[in-house]
């Protein structure tokens, strides 16, 4: 069967860095880490609600990246989608292995306690409490969209590819989340 040659689009910056990382470029690897670590951490933190867990998962995801980056095929998609799919799978595995409840399942007092113990800054603690309250009001779908869009900073196109929804539906859902954030965090 003849192979169809797909027209390759120019790589985005993260995909370009990933390609260089595959080739063993240490600088590109470091740049990729700098770009993705804060987002990965934020993603894991919003899901787990624990700094330590988020840090562990953040480290694990990059170790896994080193192991799996050779399987990344830049001709089949953008790196950011591939990476976040891996992050999501890792989170699922984490919950399965540790039998740990998701952030949303924590009782409010538990979350507050965690936040208080892990955040020395009083303002941060207060702000975290606000955010926690806000996140608790979200559905599971909204939370995922919030994490991918606002924390991880993914494009609609990538999110649509990852969670299997149309970009239009995602934009509408994101608009609702924005309104919620404005309303909740404004207070």
């Amino acid at each position, binding site marked *: 069967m003849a192979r169809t040659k797909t027209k390759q689009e120019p790589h985005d910056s993260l995909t370009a860095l990933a390609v260089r990382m595959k080739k063993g470029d240490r600088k590109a690897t470091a740049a990729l880490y700098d770009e993705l670590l804060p987002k990965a951490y934020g993603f894991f933190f919003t899901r787990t609600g624990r*700094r330590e867990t988020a840090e562990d998962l953040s480290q694990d995801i990059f170790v896994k990246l080193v192991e799996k980056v050779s399987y990344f095929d830049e001709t089949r998609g953008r790196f950011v989608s591939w990476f976040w799919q891996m992050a999501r799978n890792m989170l699922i595995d984490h919950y399965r292995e540790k039998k740990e409840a998701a952030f949303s399942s924590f009782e409010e007092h538990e979350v507050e306690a965690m936040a208080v113990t892990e955040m020395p800054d009083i303002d941060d603690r207060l702000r975290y409490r606000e955010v926690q309250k806000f996140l608790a009001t979200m559905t599971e779908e909204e939370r995922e969209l919030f994490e991918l869009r606002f924390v991880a900073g993914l494009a609609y196109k990538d999110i649509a590819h990852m969670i299997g929804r149309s970009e239009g539906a995602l934009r509408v859902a994101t608009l609702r989340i924005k309104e919620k954030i404005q309303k909740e965090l404004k207070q």
Partner: protein
Amino acid sequence: MTNPFSKNEKLPRRVKKLFTPDGDFTQKAKGRFLATFDAAHAGAAAHRGTAAVHGSRFALIIKIIAVGAAAFAIFIASASVYADTTNVPIESPLYPLKRLAENVQLAVTPPAAKPQLEATLATRRASEINDLEATHPTSTLLPTLAADLNEDVTASINGATAAGGITAATSSVEIGHANGATGTTGANGSSGAKKSALESVCDTLRSAFGTASASASTSASANGGILRNLQTSARIDVYTRCGGISPQGSFAPAAGSGSNAGSGAGTSTATSTTSARRGAFPGGRRIFPGSGIPFNASSTASASSTTSSSSTRIFPPFRTFASSSISTSTRMPRAGVHFSASSTTSEGTLEGTIGL
């Protein structure tokens, strides 16, 4: 409060700060990550690096060799073409390339055109011999050149004869006829095309020998004898089979030159059981007019003449018997020629051997 999502849909900084990892953790985790990366890629990199280095070195060597060979081939080809077209003299360093180009030309030339090319090359050799003798009369290259000349002449005439379907036995008849000689045979037996092939070669060779002014006969060098023989042999080939030139010309060696005495290689024997008539030869030509051999003078018998002379070389100073069956297809023996003849006439039998 302004909408923080109005433009780029980013979280407010104060909220985003909550999701930002600690600075210490970031640095430590980065160190661990890069160490993992280094460890994972060290082996692969080393393997890739070694293979790449070997591959690249091998490829580089192959490329250098290929480029060098191509450049050398281009240089040789260019120099050969230049040497051939400018007809460099034998003293030139490019002379071997000229000969190389000639050999290549000979190799690629169709058989039908080869005799003419060989005749042209013979012209070159004759010219080179003249030039070299004028400048370096004692050069050891002269005999070699003369041998080449001889070979070219023989090959060109033989080639033209074979191409025209003319046998050696009849060639002299035809050439004699072509040259306007009133031959007794009157046979031509060959087409115009055959004639023109041979005549074309002969014209070239006549031109070469007609204009040649070799001075071998005046050379006192040790090469003189061999050179003269070789040159003379070539000349005689032309004379015998093409006609139109003097068989002696300026190449004629001095009679009785002792330098030609040699071994028996190429010994030929001509035995005539009767006296030979001059008129028995095509066109009534005498092969070597002007030279005085006693036993020929009184030959009056009209019987047949048999000559076994598979490699006969007859030199101008010696009058002898000759027939149309004289073959010139063999190389000139360097050591000389032995010529034996016995003639039986009404006055008796005369035998003689001449060593050259």
